[in-house]
């Protein structure tokens, strides 16, 4: 062990990370260029909308309603320490719309959609279906990646909007049901307190997280190694990368929108 060994290790790691960022960036660029040039595969796109959007609604709804409810309870008990119980509707609204709605929906999409995209594409790669696509004059980026990416960019913000609303109602039910809030006043406070920027930031985050989730699934699927182990690694890697990138992007976007 020489003195240089740890430095070499750091250097190698940095190089590897930079190379990975480069590869992902090239992949994303190729995906977007295929997204805007014909031919378009409408059937694949509609199927992706169904898989990513519609079929994610139950898990998004359940996540949001429980989170909104728990948030109301926490704010109430925390606020009680300095006689600020009344802020429950405002803080639930802000917390859900600005942060928890987009982040939790993003993470749920990473768990549900990124993993399934990665496993599906990786299996296609391992069984030579990707090569078969090429020999049938069909570009895999256009046929597999572009429809999923477009669907995620469109539908995840909608899921976030649904999650925001359901989360607010989760808080509403807890607050009016067991914390003694007046239903009409609760909703009025919520609506009055939210600003357009809150909603815009929520939707922009949804769009970004949807893009990250779909891209990571496709990227790891396409890069899959051989066999069952390759598929397993691709799936695991895609979810890890999507989750971490979503949280990092959330931090950046929050900074952009709310650091005055």
């Amino acid at each position, binding site marked *: 062990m020489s003195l240089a060994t740890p430095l070499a290790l750091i250097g190698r790691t940095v190089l590897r990370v930079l190379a990975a960022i480069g590869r992902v960036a090239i992949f994303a660029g190729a995906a977007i260029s295929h997204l805007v040039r014909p*031919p378009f595969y409408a059937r694949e796109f509609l199927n992706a909308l169904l898989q990513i959007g519609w079929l994610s609604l139950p898990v998004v709804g359940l996540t949001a309603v429980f989170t909104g409810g728990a948030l109301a309870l926490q704010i109430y008990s925390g606020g009680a320490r300095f006689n600020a119980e009344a802020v429950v509707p405002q803080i639930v609204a802000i917390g859900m719309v600005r942060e928890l709605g987009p982040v939790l929906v993003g993470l749920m999409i990473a768990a549900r959609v990124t993993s399934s995209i990665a496993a599906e594409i990786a299996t296609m790669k391992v069984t*030579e279906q990707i090569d078969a*696509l090429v*020999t*049938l*004059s*069909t570009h895999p980026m256009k046929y597999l990646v572009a429809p999923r990416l477009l669907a995620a960019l469109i539908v995840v913000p909608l899921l976030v909007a649904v999650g925001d609303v359901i989360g607010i109602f989760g808080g509403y039910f807890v607050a009016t049901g067991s914390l003694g809030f007046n239903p009409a006043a609760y909703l009025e406070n919520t609506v009055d307190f939210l600003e357009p920027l809150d909603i815009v930031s929520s939707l922009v985050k949804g769009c970004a997280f949807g893009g990250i989730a779909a891209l990571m699934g496709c990227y790891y699927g396409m890069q899959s190694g051989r066999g069952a182990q390759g598929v397993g690694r691709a799936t695991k890697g895609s979810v890890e990368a999507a989750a971490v990138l979503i949280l990092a992007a959330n931090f950046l976007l929050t900074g952009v929108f709310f650091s005055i």
Partner: protein
Amino acid sequence: MTDTPTPLPPMIELRHVAKSFGTKPVLRDVHMSIPRGTSMVIIGGSGTGKSVTLKCVLGLIEPDAGQIFVDGHDMHEGDRDAFLARFGMLFQGGALFDSLPVWQNVAFRLLRGALRRPKREAREIAIEKLRRVGLTPDVADAFPAELSGGMQKRVGLARAIAADPEIIFFDEPTTGLDPIMAGVINDLIREIVTEMGATAMTITHDMSSVRAIADDVAMLHDGVIKWTGPVAEMDRAADPYLQQFIHGRAEGPIEAVR
């Protein structure tokens, strides 16, 4: 064009093709020429680069060195879609799209892109091709996962010939099949190639396939073509590598442990 008065260039020609993966050279210097309308079978042990050779011709793998000509033109010339439209390929595991029913797999190329035609017509062609490979129309709406290995292989074959390609590649067409089904697939390949007048390139290590399908044989070993010639001369050839391979001997110049 050269000034030699050859009226028709070979359908596929490889010159000095080399490819390494990492530090491991797989193809060193491969020359091969497949005349129009003939059936070339490439034999060789596992991991000798047979699949790599085939994928280089299709452009799925970019060789490090050398040139590949298809019908006298460098494969990088011209439109890639038009280039690929001349090929059909039967993959080793079938590589059927498991999200699509059988007929849409067969008609995949006919349902989109340059060769697109109405759905009804594409389906009719698919059913006709399925019949050609000995499958009844009732499998058309099944999904690939519902079929046996032999049937999947036949569907793969139907897909490979769906757009009447000029060149067909077969990647280990009999691997994983019982001997009778292997015989059926071999006969089908021979018939189809003859009747379509297509140029065929097959990779296999199944000697019964070689004898059934091949006009010419090339033996790939250690990154080069060790022997090539008509199938009839294969048994008389003196090449020790070839003899060891076709007789399946453990002893010989090819190391059994690789």
